[in-house]
């Protein structure tokens, strides 16, 4: 029995073979096209360079995870392995065209959020730094939101304990508040802030008495100062007299000089006169014996 005879007796549709061939071609194109697209999407045709991140803990890091720069995926985790020193080595492939964002000063972080997966980020602050070489090993900084929760809880607990200590009946805060209340009551008292500052009303009273006495003393001092001022005025008058006497003495001294000159001149004249008399008086010449 031939298979053709088993087929339905309806006439075959037009272009049967062409349609089936079209289906086969479509299937082949879809299969190879999808394969090529997936390979392209996985970066099979890209040149890549390798970055190795070292972290204490690789929890949450999976193969195929993205490395993002400014929110754009530029690399993929290729392998996660345990190094000899017990640390996790995360091998990341970065496309060559995106490797320009990796610099020697770049910082790699691994962030674990409470909801969602772990994320790997790279931050390059100085884009003029030299590019990161192929196969560079860098340490991943771990920013773990959940890891901070125990620390946060501890801090909050300490804070609450401190608050409890502060609000106890015998706490220092309460004592301070009571003291403050006493101070305000004293402020309202007869001696006010002075009593608060000096500690008691008796001391404040003493201070006030002292102040009164000081005031009286000040009045007496003022009177003395008035007398002193009067005496000083008298002294001023005496000094003025003395000044006049001094001036007269200076004038007298000047006259004395002139007088002396006049006396000297008169004396010379007298001397000259005596000499003239002696010359004109012949006898006078013989008074002296001149021996031969």
């Amino acid at each position: 029995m031939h298979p053709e005879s088993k087929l339905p007796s309806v006439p075959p549709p037009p272009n049967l073979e062409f349609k089936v061939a079209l289906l086969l071609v479509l299937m082949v194109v879809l299969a190879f096209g999808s394969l090529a697209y997936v390979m392209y999407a996985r970066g099979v045709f890209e040149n890549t360079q390798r970055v190795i991140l070292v972290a204490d803990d690789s929890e949450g890091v999976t193969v195929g995870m993205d490395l993002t720069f400014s929110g754009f995926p530029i690399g993929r985790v290729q392998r996660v392995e345990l190094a000899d020193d017990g640390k996790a080595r995360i091998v990341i492939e970065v496309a060559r065209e995106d490797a320009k964002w990796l610099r020697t000063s770049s910082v790699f972080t691994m962030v674990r959020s409470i909801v969602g997966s772990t994320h790997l980020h790279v931050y390059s602050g100085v884009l003029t730094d030299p590019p990161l070489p192929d196969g560079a090993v860098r340490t991943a900084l771990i920013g773990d939101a959940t890891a901070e929760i125990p620390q946060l809880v501890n801090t909050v607990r300490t804070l609450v304990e401190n608050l409890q200590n502060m609000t106890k009946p015998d706490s220092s805060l309460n004592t301070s508040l009571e003291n403050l209340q006493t101070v305000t009551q004293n402020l309202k008292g007869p001696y006010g802030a002075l009593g608060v500052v000096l500690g008691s009303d008796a001391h404040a009273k003493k201070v006030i008495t002292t102040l009164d006495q000081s005031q009286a003393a000040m009045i007496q001092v003022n009177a003395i100062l008035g007398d002193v001022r009067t005496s000083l005025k008298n002294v001023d008058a005496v000094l003025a007299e003395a000044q006049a006497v001094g001036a007269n003495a200076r004038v007298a001294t000047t006259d004395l000089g002139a007088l002396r000159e006049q006396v000297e001149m008169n004396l010379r004249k007298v001397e000259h006169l005596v000499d003239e008399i002696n010359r004109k008086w012949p006898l006078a010449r013989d008074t002296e014996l001149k021996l031969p």
Partner: protein
Amino acid sequence: MHQHSLPRSGLSALGHACVRSVSSWWGLIHFGAVALVLALSPSTYDRGNRAAVIRNIYASTWQVLFWFTVLCALISLVLIRIVVVTASSYGLSQYALEMVVRVLVLELIPLGAALFVVLRSGVLTSTGVTASPLHIEHVPRIIAIAFSVATLAAVSSIVALVLAYLVVYGLSQWGLAEYTHMIGRVFDPVVTVTFVLKTAWFSLAVAVIPLASALQTQHETARESNAVPQGAVRLFLVLVLIEGVSLAARYV
């Protein structure tokens, strides 16, 4: 004597049932293996068989491809929209596309294509099944059904991927790089190989199991009334098994 014979007959009945079940499963596997070998043998595609293959492919694939794709696109659109809107409302829109691809393309569409082909081929109701030699009549049909499952799944998956892009990014071309990156992240080698193998096993199961069960039934005329549910049950069992194994391979 009578009291002892009852449990013994029960045990023997259980033993017979086990043997029958094992032999039945073995017959099914054997049938599938022979069909696979014949389908891969060039000698199967002589002039007469090639014509039969072409007619079967036309009937099983060409006639349904358009409508199945339209139906699948509509369902995909609804599901994509639901997932994207829900994810956005929770602030998780970055995971929406990945979820759509993982759930719709990797899981639902291949299963949907397989079930659609099963229901449409009529093999569950044994229509048109005759006890003719395997390579003469059944191999073209098996090839056509397997091809149909693979083609429907592939075309619908591509359509769903395009729809997902359009729903999320619209007609803009600027989401293409991000979308491609996401596709690359989802389709890692394990997922890709598992997806291809799963679709291939679905095709084989849908093509072989109902037919083999129907043929076995014709040899065991006494159990004919029970045959249709048995083929369907076996098929669904195998489909669930394949789905479970593929999920385990990817996510466990």
